[in-house]
């Protein structure tokens, strides 16, 4: 049994209210969030708040406030499962709502980096355990028995003397008790909710089409807005004809907004390529879309400019944005030259790599490339703002309102504490919703028109405004001795405008002579986090290369990796290797066994494994080629993400990551000609569809004693290289460039 001190969280996390001892807060069901109103368990209209996470109604209904925003990763179910486990709650009593945005009570209200569950696991357990202790104490007081003698199971308190009470009956008395100083957490072997499968608590709202998303926000007196940004990176507004558009039906106003006050220090996520955009404000989305098309604008080339940016830790640096209308062909040529002969920065060096290559019996080297990608969350960017003179309310889909709060405050010139946020469900995030520019835009628009405004991006806006996954070119080299032992390993990583940088990941630590070098190619095209940032391509380059290397060595691709991991475990090179070699090996072995890899015969199977977000994943893809395209018969996925909370939800998440990996590597591509994005909508930007997705995805979890680690991102990165390696088996062609469809079409013709 684990004893947890609760004191660190008492003021922020656990306290029901500021009044000493903890006061019951109640609120009217009529003003409760929709989720509850719709599902109200025929109750008096009071909730007794036991802490920031949990409230209980006299009827016995238990409400869990989920503090991190939901975009499909299932927090609205996993968070309640964790709290309910320690609360000894009857799962049928549990509902969930999105918590208010409140940095004084919740830490890190941010969904990203696959950390929501791991970061909140201890706190949610503590919330459940302290609430249980308060319920037990209330019962003990009422029955005049020692609290140790009160038992709890399935939302019922009992005493051996025969007394029983429901949680609902004790909620009011419990809510005014002090929060205990220490609580005991359950032993893992006694878990009855964590580690089982529970249906998504929001499932029925989703299937009924309820209003859940930011784009569904409908507030009183709300106007709608669209923005027009330059059609190419490197252009800005010169002049435009507002008047003719203002005369169109339903249009209220047309004006430009300047995104950045001159002296504004940009927060690290304050990424926007277009510093001046044209806003059109009106009544009806369709009328706005027509106005957008009709608006005549002259654009001009923007000069190079600089700004000051502040990183996550507050360190400031100067960023210079180059002038020019850029082409993909030029980017690719620059990166190709960079990885061959360009000056690069050394990020890790072990032993004497140059000597190893000089003495090699054989050198294997290949270059891998990936394009820019648009995130294309299915719900386009949108946000609602009501900016008044001395306060503002913002509502919408965002992965981390805590990240953008200060940024929006700076842009509209209000103190941050005067700005309220409400988080809505997001129609996908994938990293795209970590950036504030559309929230800034709608705030500036509302401030100008002095009305509440809902801004919506068209798909074209969403796809052409920037914040892409960077484009990468990576050269991988290995030196083999006469016995086909790897004696040297060398990575040269280039990217526009950022390079992949994971110098301490596998196989670093397993090879005596190792060199990692990298260099960025500056650009005015904006980029940002995209599901498993950098890992989403580094895994492809590395794991495709290891497959080629295994072939050159005459080794089995899985055994070759296991041998390297054994070396890293027994006698590691260097001390700052990111990964745990034993856990890494365990996913390779599990996937090997579950896919029957050793008896694969003529099957076209490809393997890849990767470590990121503190989790390990190995995927084995089995394909056949049909009409020049892969039919993916199955993907066998083995994952070590520590404690799994909701099995069915976790499997769904892993399957989604794998489908995403197939999609981006087969089809995903954004290219530019003279600064202009060459894909503007989903008719030409290809996303994976049902007929192209795997026929079956079997997900297996390694069981161990570790707490939860990341899951949203880790299953994706090893998917593209496993697919590429399987396609090599089937076609004899190495797929080194993404999207694979380009090579597949060439092979066909």
């Amino acid at each position, binding site marked *: 049994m684990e004893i947890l001190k609760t004191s660190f969280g008492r003021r922020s996390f656990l306290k029901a209210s500021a009044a000493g001892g903890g006061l019951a807060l109640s609120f009217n069901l009529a003003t409760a969030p929709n989720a509850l109103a719709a599902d109200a368990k025929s109750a008096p209209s009071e909730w007794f708040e036991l802490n920031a996470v949990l409230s209980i109604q006299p009827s016995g209904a238990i409400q869990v406030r989920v503090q991190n925003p*939901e*975009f*499909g*990763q*299932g927090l609205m179910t996993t968070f309640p499962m964790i709290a309910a486990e320690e609360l000894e709650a009857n799962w049928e009593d549990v509902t969930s709502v999105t918590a208010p945005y409140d940095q004084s009570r919740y830490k890190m209200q941010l969904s990203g980096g696959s950390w929501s569950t791991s970061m909140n696991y201890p706190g949610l357990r503590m919330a459940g355990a302290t609430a249980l202790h308060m319920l037990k104490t209330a019962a003990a007081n009422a029955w005049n028995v020692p609290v140790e003698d009160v038992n709890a199971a399935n939302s019922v308190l009992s005493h051996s003397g025969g007394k029983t009470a429901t949680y609902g009956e004790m909620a009011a008395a419990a809510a005014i008790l002090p929060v205990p100083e220490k609580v005991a957490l359950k032993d893992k072997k006694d878990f009855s909710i964590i580690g089982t499968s529970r*249906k998504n608590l*929001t*499932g*029925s709202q*989703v*299937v*009924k*089409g309820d*209003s*859940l*998303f930011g*784009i*569904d926000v*409908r507030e009183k007196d709300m106007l*709608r807005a669209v923005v027009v940004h330059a059609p190419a990176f490197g252009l800005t507004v010169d002049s435009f004809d507002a008047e003719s558009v203002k005369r169109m*039906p339903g249009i209220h106003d047309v004006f430009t907004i300047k995104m950045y006050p001159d002296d504004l220090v940009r927060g690290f996520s304050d990424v926007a390529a277009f510093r001046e955009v044209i806003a059109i404000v009106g009544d*009806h*989305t*369709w*009328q706005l879309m*027509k106005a957008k098309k009709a608006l005549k604008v002259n654009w001009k080339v923007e000069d190079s400019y600089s700004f000051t940016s502040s990183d996550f830790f507050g360190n400031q640096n100067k960023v210079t944005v180059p002038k020019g209308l850029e082409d993909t062909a030029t980017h690719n040529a620059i990166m190709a030259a960079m990885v061959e002969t360009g000056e690069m920065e050394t990020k890790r060096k072990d032993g004497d790599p140059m000597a190893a290559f000089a003495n090699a019996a054989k050198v294997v080297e290949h270059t891998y490339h990936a394009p820019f990608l648009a995130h*294309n*969350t*299915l*719900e*386009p960017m949108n946000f609602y703002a009501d900016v008044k003179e001395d306060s503002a309310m913002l509502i919408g889909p965002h992965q981390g309102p805590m990240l953008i709060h200060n940024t929006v405050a700076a842009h509209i010139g209000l103190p941050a504490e005067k700005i309220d946020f409400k988080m809505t*469900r*997001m*129609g*996908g*995030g*994938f990293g795209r919703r970590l950036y504030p520019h559309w929230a800034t835009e709608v705030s500036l628009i509302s401030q100008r028109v002095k009305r509440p405004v809902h801004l919506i991006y*068209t*798909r074209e806006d969403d796809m052409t405004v920037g914040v892409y996954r960077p484009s990468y070119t990576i050269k991988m080299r290995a030196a083999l001795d006469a016995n086909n032992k790897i004696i040297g390993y060398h990575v040269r990583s280039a990217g526009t405008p950022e390079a992949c940088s994971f110098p301490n990941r596998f196989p670093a630590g397993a090879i005596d002579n190792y060199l990692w070098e990298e260099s960025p190619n500056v650009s005015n095209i904006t980029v940002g986090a995209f599901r498993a940032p950098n890992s989403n391509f580094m895994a492809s380059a590395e794991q495709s290369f290891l497959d080629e290397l295994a072939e050159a060595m005459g080794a089995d691709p899985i055994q070759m990796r296991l041998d390297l991991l054994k070396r890293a475990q027994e006698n590691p090179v260097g001390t700052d290797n990111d990964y745990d070699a034993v856990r890494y090996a365990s996913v390779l072995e599990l996937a090997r066994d579950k896919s029957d890899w050793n008896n694969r015969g003529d099957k076209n199977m490809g393997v890849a494994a990767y470590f990121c977000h503190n989790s390990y994943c190995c995927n084995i893809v089995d394909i056949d080629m049909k009409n020049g395209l892969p039919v993916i018969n199955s993907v066998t996925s083995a994952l070590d993400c520590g404690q799994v909370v909701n099995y069915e*939800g976790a499997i*769904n998440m892993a*399957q*989604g*990551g*794998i*489908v*995403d990996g197939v*999609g981006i590597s087969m089809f995903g591509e954004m290219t530019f000609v003279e600064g202009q994005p060459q894909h503007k*909508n*989903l*008719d030409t930007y290809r*996303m*994976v*569809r*049902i*007929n192209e*997705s*795997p*026929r*079956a995805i079997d997900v297996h979890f390694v069981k161990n004693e570790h707490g939860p680690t990341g899951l949203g991102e880790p299953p994706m990165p090893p998917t593209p290289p496993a697919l590429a390696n399987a396609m090599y088996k089937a076609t004899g062609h190495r797929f080194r460039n993404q999207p694979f469809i380009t090579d597949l079409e060439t092979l066909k013709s």
Partner: protein
Amino acid sequence: MTTYSLNINNQNIVVDVDPDTPMLWVLRDSLDMVGTKFGCGAGACGACTVHINGAAVRSCQLPVSAVGEANITTIEGLAYDATKLHPVQEAWLAHDVAQCGYCQPGQMMSAAALLSQNPNPSDADIDAFMQGNICRCGTYTRIREAIKTAAKA
């Protein structure tokens, strides 16, 4: 603006909009029926799928002026009544299909239309019919299974 009298989910509803307004925006903006989703506005994602006389139609491509007397069904009207969901909705819950859920109203409308014309679809039938509906979260394997479950209902 022109006045149209529409049959939506078995109700007669009058709206006053520009004739070229796609049904998607009539539903979402004029009627605040937000279950039908906007994904692309180009007929390429399926998020806006509704039924017109039982057939799956992309509402972003359908001007209100072309609807006439036709029966429109949206996700809000897919359930048989307040207490009984459509078998497709039940199957979606049984398989816990959704991740973010944004595409799912469109997926379910397409699936229901498929099953009404082909009560026992093969994998190939499902793939062919459902290709127009993108799920960015990648729930396709579950969509296939849920359609097969709904077919058995």
